[in-house]
């Protein structure tokens, strides 16, 4: 494109006056014509007249020309504005290209800030703010039982069917209440048998939630009664996966848990309940669940009447519970109902970590802002002279501000793009941090709202950090700016102070984040270093459930498991084998009130609650748990008339202090109950069973062959990789019962590791924030010190010329960086002491004022600060005094 000039310059004619120009042009024509006519011999007056006559309608021509030119001026003006913007943009890109270091650091800083912020905001939005995917989800309430006694409160306990009926029928605040309990159903026939998470639900539950099948119908109330209950609702994915999305599936009979069930409907895509359940059968009222004290059902879900609050609902249930306590003291003393929003129930335990992440990300964003502001100020100072020159040669201030602003917006835009990319990755990582991925009701994604927030944030950072330095940079004293470099002006000192305070703030904020991360990581270490009391290495675990329909008698199940264990033990690579109802860290939690023979009964309301389960002998050996007294359970313990059991050390110490527990008898329930007595034949060392940090309480283990339940989790010990055993296992089970699925296959190490996902994720997220903060803070220190060195080149040169050694110069520069770090650390420590208290509930095995963390982290930060000032210091030491003094 040729330089604008010559003819083109007149495209900018809009500064001129259109009317005057048109008049001048037309007058010139008439004057010239008159002159020529006179030269041709016309008389004075006649010549003008003839020129005008030949010209025609002067006024019309004039107006037409003016109209055309006005129109054209508008067009040109618009084009100029666009051209200016384009020019500013190109100018910004050119200047940014000229300082790639600055551009790169600034873009990375903004990108990190925006990326991390967007990730956390997306998580907070998706988990805590966006309504659950049910219509009018705010009305939905989860109801559990609550055990309150002598100061101890146990929340979220399973409920009993009778209590549920009372709550449902007697309340005045709920439109309706439904109930569900967890199931796992084996689908067999057609193709591989498979086990799916499922639930048995009351017929009103899905209508209450507001979900409708896409095929067929919901359950009917009469299907809750035995004999009419052979129906099943399928989840969308199960339908697609197992039945190829057969559109005529409704009415077909499928084999579930060994029994034929009729498919009555298919639920919509994406829906799962509860959590990951994808098949639903009617909740059937059987005799044994009629007891009010039988609290074994997962929970109830209610929909509040429109306009009713959760508190009103809770008060309503409290009234009912109080009445029930009086009516049924034996079953209900100490029990009441606990209502919480469905969201609280589903994601409530994520709230605290998420809010802490939000706080952490706020800190990080502040650090990013301080860093970018610092970079901009430093750069602004460096360009003061350039801008001074441009002002001196007549650049308009508005235009200059616009150019600087364009530059910041370009930086922010680039940073925003980077941040968006990071956020996409971050959100994916966040989903991966949860075991089994995200549940369906947390659709974590980068949605319109978070996208808007990202773009808003990057634009805001751009404007903030563009505008302030832009005004400051253009509002400069001309003579001062042109003389800049002679150093020591008041303006320069003020900027230096501002930059230093920004760095101090960065260091302080970083320290708080780092200490928080230190505490959380130390806490995670405490988890992983907890002595869990068993050896999970080389142990494969999987569950098997012979269905009731096919194995109704305990003898059949005993034969099945006997055969299974025999064949598994014979597999190559299997060193030990056993089983349990629920292995450690699996969430299995069954306790019952127990009574010891010859001991006074525990008073009502202070029962001896004991964890109990049936284990297939070999379980303790497989997990490497020693028997400390008596004997282990044996495959020969089959006589149900002489039941035996092994108790753990806690139960032994608690109930038999100074006594030998061996030979003593224990039973489930109270003395009067008709439960069988169990003789203690051994004591096993305590091991952790529940998710840390929950300790193991008293426990008793029964031999499977005397308590033949349906489900067992098999454990196999190998010296190789646990996964290598799997093909053999599948073959063995097929050989015994080809319809039986193997499920929840994992190594015991995985199971333990998985249960620690929460402390691990907390440590990782805040740890990542801390690393970013540390990097940003050191970049900040490096930037300020380098700039100071550049400004002081002459001074340092003079000092060296006067005899200062290189070491002294290095020391001087490093001292400056160290001073900033020390002030920052001081402020940060104060902040950390005040703020890390919010972490208290997330910590395990570490105090909120842990000395190692509170000393180690500041030292680490100090070392990094010194290192960050070291590089510019070395550059300062290499200054040639002669060159430095001749500079300027």
């Amino acid at each position: 494109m040729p330089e604008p000039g010559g003819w083109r310059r007149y495209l900018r004619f809009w500064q001129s006056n259109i009317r005057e120009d048109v008049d001048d042009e037309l007058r010139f024509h008439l004057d010239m014509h008159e002159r020529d006519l006179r030269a041709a011999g016309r008389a004075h007056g006649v010549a003008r007249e003839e020129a005008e006559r030949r010209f025609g309608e002067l006024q019309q021509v004039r107006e037409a020309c003016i109209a055309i030119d006005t129109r054209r001026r508008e067009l040109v003006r618009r084009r100029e504005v666009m051209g200016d913007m384009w020019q500013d943009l190109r100018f910004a890109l050119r200047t940014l290209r000229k300082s790639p270091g600055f551009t790169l650091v600034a873009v990375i800083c903004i990108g990190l800030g925006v990326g991390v912020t967007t990730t956390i905001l997306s998580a907070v939005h998706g988990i805590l703010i966006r309504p659950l995917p049910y219509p009018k989800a705010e009305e939905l309430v989860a109801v559990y039982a609550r055990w309150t006694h002598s100061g101890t409160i146990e929340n979220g306990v399973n409920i009993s069917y009778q209590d549920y009926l009372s709550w449902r029928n007697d309340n005045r605040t709920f439109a309706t209440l439904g109930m569900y309990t967890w199931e796992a159903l084996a689908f067999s026939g057609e193709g591989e048998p498979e086990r799916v998470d499922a639930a048995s639900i009351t017929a009103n539950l899905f209508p209450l939630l507001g979900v409708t099948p896409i095929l067929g119908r919901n359950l009917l109330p009469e299907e809750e009664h035995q004999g009419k209950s052979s129906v099943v609702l399928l989840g969308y994915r199960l339908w697609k996966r197992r039945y190829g999305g057969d559109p005529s599936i409704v009415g077909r009979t499928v084999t579930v848990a060994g029994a034929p069930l009729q498919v009555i409907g298919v639920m919509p895509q994406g829906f799962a309940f509860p959590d990951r359940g994808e098949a639903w059968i009617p909740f059937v009222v059987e005799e044994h669940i009629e007891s009010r004290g039988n609290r074994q059902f997962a929970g109830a879900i209610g929909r509040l009447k429109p306009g009713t609050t959760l508190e009103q609902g809770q008060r309503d249930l409290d009234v009912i519970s109080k009445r029930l306590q009086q009516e049924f003291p034996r079953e209900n003393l100490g029990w009441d109902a606990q209502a919480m929003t469905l969201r609280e129930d589903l994601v409530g335990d994520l709230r605290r970590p998420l809010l802490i992440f939000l706080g952490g990300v706020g800190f990080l964003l502040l650090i990013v802002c301080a860093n970018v502001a610092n970079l901009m100020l430093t750069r602004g100072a460096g360009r003061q002279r350039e801008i001074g020159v441009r002002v001196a040669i007549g650049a308009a201030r508005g235009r200059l501000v616009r150019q600087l602003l364009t530059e910041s917006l370009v930086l922010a835009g680039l940073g925003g793009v980077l941040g968006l990319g990071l956020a996409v990755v971050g959100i994916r990582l966040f989903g991966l941090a949860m075991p089994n991925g995200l549940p369906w009701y947390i659709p974590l994604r980068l949605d319109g709202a978070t996208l808007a927030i990202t773009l808003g944030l990057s634009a805001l950072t751009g404007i903030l950090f563009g505008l302030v330095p832009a005004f400051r940079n253009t509002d400069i004293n001309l003579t001062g700016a042109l003389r800049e470099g002679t150093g020591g002006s008041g303006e320069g000192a003020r900027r230096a102070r501002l930059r230093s305070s920004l760095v101090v703030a960065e260091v302080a904020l970083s320290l708080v984040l780092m200490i928080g991360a230190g505490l959380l990581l130390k806490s995670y270490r405490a988890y992983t270093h907890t002595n869990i009391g068993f050896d999970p290495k080389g142990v494969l675990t999987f569950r098997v459930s012979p269905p009731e329909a096919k194995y109704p008698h305990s003898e059949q199940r005993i034969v099945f498991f006997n055969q299974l264990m025999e064949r598994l033990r014979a597999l190559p690579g299997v060193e030990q084998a056993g089983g349990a109802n629920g292995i450690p860290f699996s969430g299995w939690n069954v306790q019952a009130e127990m009574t010891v023979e010859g001991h006074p009964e525990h008073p009502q309301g202070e029962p001896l609650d004991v964890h109990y389960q049936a284990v297939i002998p070999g379980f303790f050996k497989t997990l490497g748990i020693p028997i400390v007294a008596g004997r282990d359970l044996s495959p020969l313990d089959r006589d149900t008339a002489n039941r035996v059991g092994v108790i753990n050390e806690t139960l032994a110490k608690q109930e038999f202090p100074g006594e030998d527990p061996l030979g003593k008898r224990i039973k489930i329930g109270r003395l009067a109950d008709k439960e069988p007595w169990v003789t203690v034949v051994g004591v096993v060392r305590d091991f952790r069973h529940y998710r840390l940090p929950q300790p193991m309480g008293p426990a008793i283990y029964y031999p499977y062959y005397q308590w033949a339940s349906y489900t067992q989790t098999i454990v196999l010990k190998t010296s190789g990789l646990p996964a290598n055993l799997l093909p053999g296992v599948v073959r063995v089970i097929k050989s015994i019962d080809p319809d039986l699925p193997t499920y929840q296959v994992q190594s015991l190490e995985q199971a333990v590791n998985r249960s620690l996902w929460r402390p691990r994720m907390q440590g990782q997220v805040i740890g990542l924030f801390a690393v970013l903060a540390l990097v940003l803070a050191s970049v900040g220190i490096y930037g300020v010190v380098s700039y100071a060195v550049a400004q002081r080149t002459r001074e340092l040169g003079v000092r060296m010329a006067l005899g200062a050694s290189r070491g002294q110069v290095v020391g001087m520069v490093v001292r400056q960086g160290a001073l900033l770090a020390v002030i920052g650390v001081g402020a940060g420590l104060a902040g950390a002491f005040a703020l890390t208290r919010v972490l208290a509930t997330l910590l395990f095995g570490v105090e909120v004022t842990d000395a190692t963390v509170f000393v180690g982290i500041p030292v680490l930060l100090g070392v990094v600060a010194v290192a960050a000032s070291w590089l510019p210091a070395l550059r300062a030491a290499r200054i040639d005094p002669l060159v430095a003094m001749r500079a300027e």
Partner: protein
Amino acid sequence: MSALTPAPALDLLKGTLDLLMLKALSWGPAHGYSMARWIERLTADAFQIGEGSLYPALHRLEEREWIESEWRVSENNRRAKFYRLTSRGRQQLRAETANWTSFVEAMGKVLRTTEQPN
């Protein structure tokens, strides 16, 4: 201006005028007055239009960026607005000339023909 001049000719005239001015400028920058004289001389006043009509036409051509203008000092030392062709204008001139020529040839052929429509 003769009252006998048929009115429909004016429409034809408009496009013609544009072409005439592009042609007039093909020798180099000129102001409106000199173009009016050039047209008068060459066409022997065949069009009989008011000379003033040149100016809206010129301004329109400038709006279309076929020509550009510049104030310069004229031969008799007066400030005058000079026009010149842009490269787009030059292209336009070539295209219009070709059109015009083929139009005239076609018309001429028709008007000279002895063949009678059936």
